[in-house]
């Protein structure tokens, strides 16, 4: 990465010389008036030119970032070295050219980045996120959230994403709280906290937050996504009647997306509508192709309806695709036992048991390794457990 000088590090030309010293009062006043006029005109001119340069820099940015950077620099110089919007455009241009260090340097020299155009701050933050320039992203996005604007939600969303990337769920949730407070109509923060709650297996909070998100009439994509998550968490939490109502709502408007269709199969199973579940999973397989999860689900349904021979075939395929799937091994063992083949069941039962044990154990060992990072024994055990679990 090149180390280009930041814009304000360039030498600046002197802007004025010495004043005349004639003692005649009238003449003095005339000169003073002329001087003021000249300075004002110069200021107006420089403002005009720097604004024009900035406009031109913005125009050039998408197609010619190098030229945009020069133009923005000129604007900054014209403005006397402190022109936040132009400095930001210069940073964006530098970013567009991949000169991230210079962009970061430039950003840090903007005296009040919060005065910059929020949309442009958001844009720079997004660019930086995409390029993995986390520090620049954070500065830009935090600046974008400093004042009310249309960019607020976008900036919060990316900031939350950034916190989650760095495993800072507490900070992410704090940002969501602020986001909810400042943009009460925003659905996304509720969707995010719903997701977080679901990941923490706090299904009650998750359902409540998803419902809050839906009440805020989100855009169609987000609505679909939230409703899909909601039905999944309703199925997981065993609230069959509510899950049914949500699915009915979804299915009125559109066909089910892949993952949601699998959740729907689960719901049909909970409702005891096993044959319908089988039809639905067939449709899913025809549409989405075979994967271990759907094959396992079909195997389970076949076992449910008393067709263990067919279940064996499905579950064998599932296990072949994902040999670390506890449930598939366990169900395959059951299916073998039901067709009177305990010999074939045994290895799968043992495998399921081993995976279950490792799944439980690994949490403890991870905690131990975190507490004692140099504990060779724990590190070795963790390595072995990861191997057992295929991680």
């Amino acid at each position: 990465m090149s180390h280009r000088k930041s814009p304000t590090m360039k030498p600046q030309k002197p802007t004025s010389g010495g004043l005349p010293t004639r003692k005649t009062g009238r003449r003095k006043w005339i000169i003073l008036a002329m001087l003021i006029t000249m300075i004002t005109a110069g200021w107006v001119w420089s403002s005009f030119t720097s604004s024009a340069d900035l406009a031109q820099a913005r125009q050039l940015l998408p197609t010619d970032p190098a030229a945009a950077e020069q133009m923005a620099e000129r604007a900054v110089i014209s403005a006397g070295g402190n022109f936040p919007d132009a400095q930001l455009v210069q940073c964006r241009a530098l970013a567009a050219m991949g000169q991230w260090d210079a962009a970061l340097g430039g950003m840090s020299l903007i005296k009040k980045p919060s005065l910059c155009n929020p949309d442009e701050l958001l844009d720079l933050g997004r660019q930086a996120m995409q390029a993995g320039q986390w520090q620049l992203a954070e500065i830009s996005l935090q600046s974008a959230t400093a004042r009310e604007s249309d960019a607020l939600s976008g900036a919060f969303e990316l900031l939350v994403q950034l916190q989650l990337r760095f495993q800072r769920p507490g900070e992410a949730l704090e940002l969501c709280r602020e986001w909810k407070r400042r943009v009460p109509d925003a659905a996304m923060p509720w969707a995010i906290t719903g997701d977080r709650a679901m990941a923490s297996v706090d299904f009650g909070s998750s359902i409540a937050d998803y419902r809050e998100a839906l009440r805020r009439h989100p855009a169609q994509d987000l609505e679909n996504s939230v409703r899909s998550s909601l039905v999944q968490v309703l199925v997981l939490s065993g609230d069959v009647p509510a899950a049914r109502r949500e699915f009915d709502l979804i299915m009125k408007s559109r066909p089910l997306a892949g993952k949601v269709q699998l959740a729907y199969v689960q719901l049909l199973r909970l409702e005891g509508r096993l044959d319908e579940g089988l039809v639905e999973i067939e449709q899913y397989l025809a549409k989405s192709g075979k994967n271990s999860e759907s094959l396992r689900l079909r195997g389970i349904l076949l076992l449910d309806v008393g067709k263990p021979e067919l279940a064996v075939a499905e579950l064998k395929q599932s296990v072949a695709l994902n040999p670390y799937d506890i449930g598939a091994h366990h169900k395959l063992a059951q299916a073998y036992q039901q067709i009177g083949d305990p010999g074939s069941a045994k290895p799968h039962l043992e495998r399921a048991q081993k995976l279950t044990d490792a799944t439980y154990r690994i949490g403890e060992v991870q905690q131990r390794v975190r507490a004692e990072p140099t504990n060779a024994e724990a590190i070795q055990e963790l390595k072995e457990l990861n191997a057992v679990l295929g991680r």
Partner: protein
Amino acid sequence: MFYGELNHRLHAPGSLRPLFSSLLFVLVLTSINCTDKVTAPPKSSSSVPDERRYLGDSTDNIVAPKPGRAWWVDETDRSGIRFVYQNGRDGGHFTILESVGGGVALLDFDQDGDVDVFIPGGGSISTSKPIEILGLPAGLFSNQGDGKFTDVSNLVESIPRPCYSHGAFASDYNRDGYPDVLVTGYQGCQLLKNEQGKRFVDVTTSAKLDSPEWTTAAAWADVDRDGWADLMTVGYVQWNNEVDAFCGDTQTKTRDVCPPQNYAATRQHLFRNNRDGTFTEIANAFGSDAIGKGLGVVATDVNDDGWVDFYVANDQVANQLYLGGPTFPWHDSGVAAGVSGSEFGAPEGSMGVDAADYDGDGRPDLWVTNYELEDNSLYQNRGQNQFSHATVRAGLGGNGRPYVGFGTGFADFDMDGWLDLFVINGHVLYSTGRSAYLEPPILLHNVPAGTQRRFKDVSIEHGGPWFQKRIAGRGAAVGDLDNDGDLDLIVVRQNEPVSVLINQLQPADWVRLDLRGTTSDPDAIGSVVKAQIEGREIVRHIRSGSGYLSQFDQRIHLPVKEAVDITVTWPTGKSERFSRLKSRATHRIQEGTGESP
């Protein structure tokens, strides 16, 4: 800890939306107990509305009671049973001890033909440190024959320092014709010998059952077929009266009870009845398998081989099935038999337990109630020591997930010849659980589904007002308290009065069978009764340990219009036929007095 893994998977870097790469995998994961996650808002107040709500669903699932005949009416006041099980919560230490709660035993202690009630008292936990734990006296209530009871607690010998008690399990261990009671609890069990129905005296020491161990559940059964009831006991965890580290919601600094993961498992014991009033532990009865975090154990002959078996419900670790036989050790066959955990084999937080033939195939199926976000597990007995997880197939999928299930059992409440189920729920966490501390019970009606059987949730339809309540339920027992031929319920709650629910269906046709072993143990645990009723063979298994820390009325109720012929297979393996047993009567079925089948 385990959920940390789940979090990691679901929220991989860069993801704002959960990555449901495998919904079913999440199901597998969520079927595992998780008391270390405590994030739901507190809802522990008794002011929680009576409406039945699902987890987190604040508006959509309020279900108004539907018209339908309520099976029970709350007759607590009329019954004369006024008793509160105390768990010591007011000590403020949030000990795991207080989460266990208590049960209730139904037994005819005075042998007057009706069931009496024995309720352990629980205990108190001091506010001071170090913690001082004291037991509270038990309640004994004598049935006047019509469901009204007289408090005869004074007949239970007062003990200077009774143990902090949990469960009560009856058996005529000394074959004197009167049922005795084992009370389980912290710092040891108590064996109360019934002296001819006059009083209960503590014979723990003389019976050689003295032990400082924390015992929760127990089951009486004749394991060596010598005609004397032996005893299996299980313990919960190794907790020794210490003040625990902080458990609860770290964000809000709300303290709560610590989960069982924080403690080591305990040993299980099998005591042989020496036929002289004493017991000796059978060394190596279960080999190295004999550890667990047990809260329930039911004994009956699940594989029809003539030997009593034990099924143990463990919290957080795999449930165990000990298949009986002539030689020890008996090894755990839970995993191999498919009864160790969830439908995907994961261990669950199991509490209540029962065994009975719900599907009419003659084999006893197994049932356990579990922690929240786990289905209660129904294991359909397929014969040859194989079970299949039938929860979803039997319509019970999702049903128990919002709640923490404790008291439970199979019973034919509507006397249609098919065994129904009930589940008494109540959280263990006071204020930091995912769902509220107070939870509604569930009533499940056994209904036909093609050629199979399913359970339909009729809590709203037939549960009556009591089943719409939210309670901190624990043990419960089923029996005919008012002697009218149908099955009533008695429910123990944490720090709230015991509830007496009287069945008001009052069937016109019934037969009550009171089995008495002579060569077999007097309670005939492991016996099988077969009756041909309206073209169908009804099979009932005599078991002990049903429910949660409780003792059901052991008598069998069958829907019989005029008379019925039954066949009893005793634990000795011998079968006898008893003919023309008339309707609307109790029949004492004594071993050795029947005809050859």
